[in-house]
């Protein structure tokens, strides 16, 4: 059973009454009221009404404290019981209407002066703001006062006439007496027309409120409580006495004009701001306006208008001229980004997010700027002369042994390092903006990533530069770096790698650079190398790093093998070659770059390998027999170009020198490339003072001409490394026809002397080499696509062109981003080679491909 309520009670009483009546027992003590129930008696009605009427007057005049509620209630009760409710209802209405016309309206209309009408409705200028404000306030105060009096009186009236509503109005489907009388205010005041000016009070009222609001927008102080009372009055009045919720005067009449006037106000304001042309001002101003309007809704008008008025501000101040503001010179998005105006960008983001969840405008602006800055990096790079830069660096270091003219390799490394550093700096900058200003917004992040990828991939050397950057850092830098710094380098490298589309190209370069680091033992920390590779693996998958890992495996196995061989040799006892230590790297052909291995494997281009000196040959044979003990059938090819040798050398004292280093015998340990060793050993058998010509050396060693020139130059041109004396022109570049002899007078401050070939520009590809690499990349891409096509067709048998292309792109997108026409060419080629055939499917007329087994 539900909690007790009146209705249930009444029901229970009625039931009890019916029961007792049925039993024929008259209710005991039942007394009829003294008055007999008769037809309405005119005198009695008049008497009761007169009492009520005087009470109504007292209520209006705030004289009600002496009145007995019970008595008044009883007058109305009696009238209603006598079925005269309709007369009472009409009488009350008439009374109130008369009261309005006689007492209230004149007071209000007096407040409406010609001036007020002119200022608010007709926009006549000429009076000061202060004057206007006080006049408006006076009018609003009058309205408020009248309203409050009316409201209180009508509440009280409705209370004593409660029985009228219950006994009469509700049955008649008429508005309650309260609704009927409170509405008089609307009908007799707000909707009244002032005859002289022919305008409606409501319009003046609205215009006055709006005028006050606009004054506040301009910075004046206004009476917020007053406006609040006025608007809440509109909130409690309805268009009709029906009092439908959605017909409140506030929504019906006031809010539309309020919004309209706000549109106009902010439209003007926005145009003014646009003329001032400062985006920072605009941002702050707009934000302030939004805050102000929120405050205004909370304190001055109604919170229900908040979303609507904010929409107005957003539309007028943000949406309409957003792009113009963002493109402003000197303060627009570009300037904000360039000058790190964090606050501005933050505000901009907040404002843009208000109007557009996708933030397209901001997204575009950011993308454009990122790409511009990306091209800027390229442009600066192209204009920088790295030869000069590096020169300055070496000059400040006082490193005079360095070549004056920086070699191409160093230049390229410098360019690569600068490029990567610049790109990373840009990335860091935008990452910071993203977290500081853009709340790590996902759409913006995606847009930024796309833009970065775009300019990085538009730059045709990005893959090479990235690999060079890693090479540079792993070679030299790591030693002096803390763990955190190394970590950073690795992380950044991976970041850039993620952007790179031509991953296969990167793979080629990385393979090449890694090979050099491993073979020449230039890598400063193998652990870091492994870490780098395991990161790539995580990022790009096993197949990407497969070759790199193979290279590491080869190197490690080779180390063990060298040791085992040394042990083996010791076990053999003394022999002619026990003085030559051998460290060997056995490289699996597939894992290593073609530059290192390929030339000597395919060897059509280079002919038979070089002629090794007899001592070395014996060593090679000995090793091979050791090697093939466990591994029968394997072939070893000696790659002299990749090796180095350390030679203990003896320079006898120079006759005639009395003092100085040349007066004594000198011993040096020369570290030379394997080719260099082959050359130097030639001079062992040569009598003192005799020389060998370039051609003789070439013939006896069979070293390729370019390598030979580089090497001989390295051993003769630089004074501190001049172990060979060249005739003519000792310090010049080697050319065919030159003659060389052993330089007895060689002096070096250090015991160990490193002789490298000069001008080899190892890391660098000169243009030709680059073309070659590109060609190779293209070649491997060709294979890659063909393999993908065949793989797909083998499985699907028949497929449409479009579908095939899509699947191909999907399969190889991890490696590079293929061109459509490129794929098409490959397909055509496969058709020519009869892997596929073209046919037309019946009915559709569309061309499809079929796999030919």
């Amino acid at each position, binding site marked *: 059973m539900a909690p007790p309520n009146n209705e249930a009670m009444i029901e229970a009483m009625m039931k009890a009454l019916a029961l007792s009546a049925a039993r024929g027992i008259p*209710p*005991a003590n039942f*007394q009829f009221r003294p008055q007999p129930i008769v037809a309405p008696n005119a005198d009695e009605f008049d008497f009761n009404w007169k009492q009520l009427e005087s009470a109504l007057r007292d209520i209006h005049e705030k004289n009600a404290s002496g009145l007995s509620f019970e008595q008044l209630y009883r007058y109305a009760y009696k009238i209603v019981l006598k079925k005269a409710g309709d007369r009472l209802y009409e009488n009350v209405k008439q009374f109130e209407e008369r009261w309005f016309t006689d007492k209230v309206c004149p007071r209000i209309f007096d407040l409406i002066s010609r001036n007020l009408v002119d200022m608010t409705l007709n926009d006549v200028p000429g009076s000061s703001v202060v004057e206007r404000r006080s006049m408006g306030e006076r009018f609003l105060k009058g309205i408020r006062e009248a309203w409050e009096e009316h409201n209180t009186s009508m509440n009280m009236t409705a209370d004593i006439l*409660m029985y009228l*509503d219950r006994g009469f109005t509700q049955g008649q489907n008429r508005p309650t007496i*309260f609704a009927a009388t409170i509405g008089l205010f609307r009908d007799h005041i707000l909707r009244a027309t002032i005859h002289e000016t022919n305008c409606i009070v409501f319009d003046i009222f609205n215009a006055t409120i709006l005028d006050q609001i606009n004054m506040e927008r301009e910075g004046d102080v206004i009476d917020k409580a007053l406006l609040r009372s006025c608007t809440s009055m509109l909130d409690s009045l309805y268009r009709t006495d029906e009092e439908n919720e959605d017909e409140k005067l506030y929504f019906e009449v006031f809010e539309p004009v309020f919004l309209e006037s706000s549109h106009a106000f902010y439209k003007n304001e926005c145009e003014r701001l646009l003329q001032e042309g400062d985006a920072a001002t605009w941002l702050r101003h707009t934000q302030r306006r939004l805050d102000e309007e929120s405050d205004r809704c909370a304190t001055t008008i109604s919170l229900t208008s908040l979303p609507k008025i904010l929409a107005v501000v957003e539309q007028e101040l943000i949406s309409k001229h957003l792009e113009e503001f963002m493109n402003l010179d000197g303060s627009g998005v570009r300037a904000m980004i360039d000058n790190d105006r964090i606050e501005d960008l933050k505000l901009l983001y907040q404002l843009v997010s208000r109007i557009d969840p996708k933030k397209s405008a901001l997204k575009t602006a950011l993308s454009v700027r990122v790409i511009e800055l990306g091209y800027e990096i390229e442009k600066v790079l192209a204009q920088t002369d790295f030869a000069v830069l590096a020169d300055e660096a070496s000059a400040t270091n006082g490193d005079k042994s360095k070549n004056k003219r920086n070699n191409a390799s160093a230049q390229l490394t410098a360019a690569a390092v600068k490029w990567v550093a610049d790109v990373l700096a840009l990335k860091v900058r935008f990452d910071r903006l993203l977290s500081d200003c853009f709340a790590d917004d996902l759409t913006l992040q995606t847009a930024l990533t796309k833009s970065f990828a775009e300019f990085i991939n538009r730059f045709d050397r990005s893959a090479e530069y990235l690999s060079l950057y890693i090479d540079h850092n792993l070679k030299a830098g790591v030693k002096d770096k803390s763990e955190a710094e190394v970590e950073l380098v690795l992380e950044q490298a991976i970041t850039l790698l993620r952007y790179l589309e031509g991953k296969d190209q990167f793979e080629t370069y990385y393979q090449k650079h890694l090979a050099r680091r491993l073979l020449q033992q230039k890598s400063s920390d193998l652990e870091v190398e492994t870490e780098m590779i395991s990161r790539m693996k995580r990022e790009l998958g096993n197949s990407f790093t497969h070759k790199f890992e193979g290279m590491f495996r080869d190197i490690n196995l080779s180390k063990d093998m060298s040791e085992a061989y040394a042990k083996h040799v010791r076990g053999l006892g003394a022999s002619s070659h026990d003085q030559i230590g051998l460290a060997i790297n056995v490289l699996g052909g597939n894992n290593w770059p073609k530059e290192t291995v390929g030339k000597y494997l395919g060897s059509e281009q280079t002919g038979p390998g070089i002629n090794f000196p007899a001592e070395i040959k014996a060593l090679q044979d000995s090793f091979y027999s050791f090697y093939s003990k466990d591994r029968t059938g394997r072939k070893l090819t000696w790659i002299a170009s990749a090796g180095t040798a350390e030679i203990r050398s003896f320079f006898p004292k120079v006759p005639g020198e009395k003092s100085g280093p040349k007066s004594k015998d000198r011993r040096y340990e020369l570290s030379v490339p394997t080719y260099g060793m082959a050359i130097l050993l030639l001079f062992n058998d040569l009598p003192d003072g005799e020389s060998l010509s370039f051609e003789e050396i070439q013939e006896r060693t069979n070293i390729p001409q370019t390598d030979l020139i580089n090497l001989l130059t390295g051993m003769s041109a630089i004074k501190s490394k001049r172990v060979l004396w060249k005739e003519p022109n000792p310090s010049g570049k080697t050319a065919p026809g030159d003659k060389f002899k052993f330089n007895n007078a060689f002096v070096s401050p250090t015991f160990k002397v490193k002789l490298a070939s000069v001008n080899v520009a190892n890391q660098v590809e000169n243009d030709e080499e680059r073309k070659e690499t590109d060609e190779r990349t293209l070649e491997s891409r060709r294979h890659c696509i063909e393999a993908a096509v065949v793989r797909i067709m083998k499985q699907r048998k028949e497929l449409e062109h479009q579908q095939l292309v899509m699947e191909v792109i999907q399969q190889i997108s991890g490696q590079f981003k293929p061109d459509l026409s490129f794929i098409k060419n490959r397909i055509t080629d496969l058709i020519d080679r009869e892997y596929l055939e073209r046919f037309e499917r019946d009915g559709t007329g569309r061309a499809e491909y079929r796999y030919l087994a």
Partner: protein
Amino acid sequence: MAEEEVSKYVTLVSNDGFEFVVLREAVLISPMIKSMVDTKNSFREARLSGRCKFEEISGQVMEKVVEYFHYWYKNREKEDVPDMDIPAELCLELLVAADFLGLDSKKPPPPRGV
């Protein structure tokens, strides 16, 4: 008087002079009495510390009405309440009084603007 704190009780007086002191909150179920003792309206009853004379209601009936007020107040938030005992001989008069006090309204009085 208006400054003084409103008393927790109101006094209902019947036409034959019986006075019933009732918890103010309990009488608020009657919209009529509620308006009558509403200090905002400042009629005489509200000013005289809530002393309300009912010229139409006898002490006997008023007693039952007050009992109902308390019955309602005590049980207003409970489920499963026992019925209140109503003597059959008082029913008719009680009905009239309930009508007068606005206790029979099918729906609460319509809300009004402030």
